């Protein structure tokens, strides 16, 4: 399926929605996306204050240059719809729906988003969506969820709740093996991005990088992060090597030459190159432009 976007989404930094200091300064860390959290990181008594704070933070000029995501509360709670009313009106780029079990959850969300867009005069369809899968049924339904809306830009696996549902616990990654593969395949089938779980042992760089290497090789676009320190580590791990950049440049040059000469077939060093290889080369150069080559 054709990819909907070539935007880089390696790092999605979680910020507690009730924390004024972090909301005011997080842009300096330059993650690919910033995710204001109104769900688990906010206590029940501060749901109202966090919603209003995020409403205003979304409108700060410093966040115009960075993709903003808000994790709302589930729509079956007293908070979810109120969160949605606030963030769509405030101009959020992407709404992240937690605990998505079935495509009907996304249909319900999309209907509300479209109504709010019409009410506030925002372009219909401009609010993008992503779903977090946090249960066995969510993983089983991942393809249906990922393909449930044209607004979907990604699907994320949430490890903690998933492990609880599976009656296991976080360990060496084997407990997430099936879910990681299922969610990634769903994303690729839908032509959207896939985001891996958070790595909560923030002082364990070695363990973090081992997990990043695994998900990068699997094909994940990126990872949800809970500590700004992890951003540079992640970006460097996703940066291409100099050899990969050199090869990508030659692929693009060959593709440009073939187009210029009106050739239907692209060849490099006697080997035929097709569109997926050209796309892969574009992604490689995009990652190199964002964070250089791997150190």
């Amino acid at each position, binding site marked *: 399926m054709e990819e909907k976007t070539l935007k880089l989404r390696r790092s999605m930094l979680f910020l507690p929605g009730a*924390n*004024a*200091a972090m*909301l*005011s*300064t997080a842009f300096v860390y330059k993650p690919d996306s910033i995710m204001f959290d109104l769900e688990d990181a906010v206590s029940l008594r501060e749901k*109202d*204050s966090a919603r*209003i*704070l995020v*409403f*205003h*933070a979304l*409108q*700060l000029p410093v966040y115009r240059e960075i993709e903003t995501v808000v994790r709302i509360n589930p729509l079956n709670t007293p908070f979810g719809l*109120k969160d949605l*009313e*606030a963030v769509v*009106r*405030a101009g959020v780029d992407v709404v992240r729906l937690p605990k998505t079990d079935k495509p009907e959850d996304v249909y319900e969300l999309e209907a509300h988003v479209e109504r709010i867009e019409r009410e*506030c005069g925002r372009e219909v369809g401009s609010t993008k969506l992503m779903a977090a899968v946090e249960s066995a049924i969510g993983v089983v339904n991942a393809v249906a969820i990922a393909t449930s809306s044209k607004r979907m830009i990604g699907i994320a696996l949430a490890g903690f709740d998933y492990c609880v549902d599976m009656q296991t616990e976080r360990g060496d990654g084997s407990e997430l093996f099936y879910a990681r593969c299922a969610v990634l395949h769903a994303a690729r089938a839908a032509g959207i991005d896939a985001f891996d779980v958070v790595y909560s042992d923030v002082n364990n760089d070695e363990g973090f990088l081992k997990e990043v290497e695994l998900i990068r090789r699997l094909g994940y676009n990126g990872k949800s992060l809970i500590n700004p320190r992890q951003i540079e580590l992640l970006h460097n791990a996703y940066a291409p090597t100099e050899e990969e950049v050199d090869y990508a440049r030659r692929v693009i040059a060959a593709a440009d030459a073939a187009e210029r000469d009106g050739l239907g077939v692209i060849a490099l060093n006697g080997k035929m190159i097709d569109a997926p290889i050209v796309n892969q080369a574009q992604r490689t150069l995009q990652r190199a432009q964002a964070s250089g080559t791997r150190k």
Partner: protein
Amino acid sequence: MKIIKEAIAGTLESSDLLVKVAPSADATLEIIIKSEVIKQFGVQIRRVVDETLAKLDVTAGSFLIEDKGALDCAIRARVQTAILRAAGCDELDWRKL
């Protein structure tokens, strides 16, 4: 919006502010602002508070604001939250905010 009970919003953490609001016995508006940066930004803080009260049609109440270097957006958010809590208001007209 009418202040009908005491309420608090915000924190005393750096880059935040704490807003305490209470009903006014004589239907007047009293605003006290304490800030470590009152000399540099006192006028601006007061302007943001006044604008926020006006947008929510608050004409009476006692406000004590302890600022810890918050941005304007945080000041607006905390004052609005305190007002909504003090007014017992659960439904919002986001256009007013």
